[in-house]
């Protein structure tokens, strides 16, 4: 029933060789990052409670969890606006905190820029204080995202704020990209531009990415694996492809209510007389087990998209002790 994090087995090893297929050489490569037993408490709320995460160089990881699971807090701890009560964020060897920050690009869920600034001022502010600021790349980002430099930060709509946050966070071509709900409120065109830009950064820089999002379809496109977070802890780490290929929903008719579901179960609930099981792993084996104990059971397989697969995992986490 429990899903132990399977960091080492499930991590997709980045293959530097694959870039050789079509990418220009001389890439900086992504930053690795290790979070060890992070703990942070706000009053009685444990925002982080023994959070472990290992980001390999060039890896792209999605963070999925209910609201308040600790995702935003994790980001704030990594960039240093919150200080941990316990645990450690291990930076790549030889990097000071400031050097680390100069390679990190953080796009927060709400735009952080002084309310008196115009978009242009905010960009100039970052340009002055960010030693690795890449003005050509920044100009390109602005053009792609359609930034109106004269617009005041406080007047920007939600989508425009998200776009500006993107430019501010990524204008120095960071090798570790932290995205907190990056696509909330943006229009379809911006959505595509952002996805393409992130893909490009993955290709050109090999940037490591950590993306928290409730837009699970976007995570499917962008990540190598998805980490499920609940109450400040990592519950499970699953390769993104396996979320779809190895998670199946079964509608089982003709079993009594008190029936104990088989193992490999992600989540179960009852709809009328049918048990709705979400399982992971080999479907046939599970079906076999159900039929051997309940020969009269009728089983329907229902294919799942990543959205349902993740949602059922989140539902499943709630019943965990």
């Amino acid at each position: 029933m429990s899903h132990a994090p399977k960091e080492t087995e499930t991590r997709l090893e980045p293959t530097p060789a694959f870039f050789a297929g079509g990418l220009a050489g001389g890439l900086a490569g992504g930053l690795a990052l290790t979070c060890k037993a992070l703990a942070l408490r706000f009053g009685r709320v444990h925002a982080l409670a023994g959070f472990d995460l290992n980001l390999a160089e060039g890896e792209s990881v999605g963070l999925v969890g209910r609201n308040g699971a600790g995702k935003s807090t994790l980001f704030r701890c990594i960039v240093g606006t919150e200080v941990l009560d316990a645990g450690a964020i291990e930076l790549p060897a030889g990097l000071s905190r400031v050097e680390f920050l100069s390679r990190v690009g953080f796009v927060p869920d709400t735009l952080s820029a002084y309310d008196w600034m115009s978009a242009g001022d905010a960009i100039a502010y970052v340009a002055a204080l960010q030693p690795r600021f890449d003005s050509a790349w920044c100009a390109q980002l602005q053009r792609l995202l359609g930034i109106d430099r004269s617009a005041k930060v406080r007047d920007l709509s939600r989508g425009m704020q998200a776009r500006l946050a993107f430019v501010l966070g990524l204008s120095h071509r960071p090798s570790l990209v932290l995205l907190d709900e990056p696509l909330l409120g943006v229009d379809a065109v911006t959505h595509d531009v952002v996805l393409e830009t992130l893909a490009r950064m993955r290709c050109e820089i090999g940037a490591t990415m950590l993306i928290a999002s409730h837009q699970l379809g976007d995570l499917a496109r962008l990540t190598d694996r998805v980490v499920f977070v609940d109450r400040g802890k990592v519950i499970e780490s699953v390769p993104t492809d396996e979320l779809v290929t190895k998670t199946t929903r079964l509608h089982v008719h003709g079993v009594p209510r008190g029936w104990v579901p088989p193992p490999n179960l992600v989540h179960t609930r009852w709809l009328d007389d049918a048990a709705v099981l979400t399982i992971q792993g080999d479907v046939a084996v599970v079906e076999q087990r159900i039929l051997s104990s309940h020969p009269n059971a009728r089983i329907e397989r229902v294919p799942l998209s990543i959205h349902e697969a993740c949602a059922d995992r989140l539902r499943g986490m709630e019943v965990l002790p």
Partner: protein
Amino acid sequence: MPLPFLVHSSAAQPIFRQIADGLRASIARGTYAAGDLLPSVRSIAEELGVNPNTVHKAIAELEREKLVEPERGRGMVVRGGTRAMARASGDEAVLAHLIEAARLASAAGMSADKFDQLVRRAQRASATTQPGGAP
């Protein structure tokens, strides 16, 4: 050249499989002929807005199926005589869809003849929308 397919992030198919299927279908259709350079991981990733690792995984699958091979200094090249192979592996994909369709038909209590008719109608319909498609 733009990619002749799209990926759907909320489909029940994983992205890498959608890409592999798309590329395979393109080879089968002859969009990428033998000796042609397959679009690079980077260009596919940027165009579709997906993780390059995922693209790599899709191409690795084609490589495993011997549809493409790496060529030093150029990239992935479509192998000779692969169109039939692509088609053969395409057969399986089609078959999978047909099985799904047959299941639907039997659930709706459709006769085998009626099902055959529908298959033919589907072929005709796809031929008119894809004039350059498979003969």
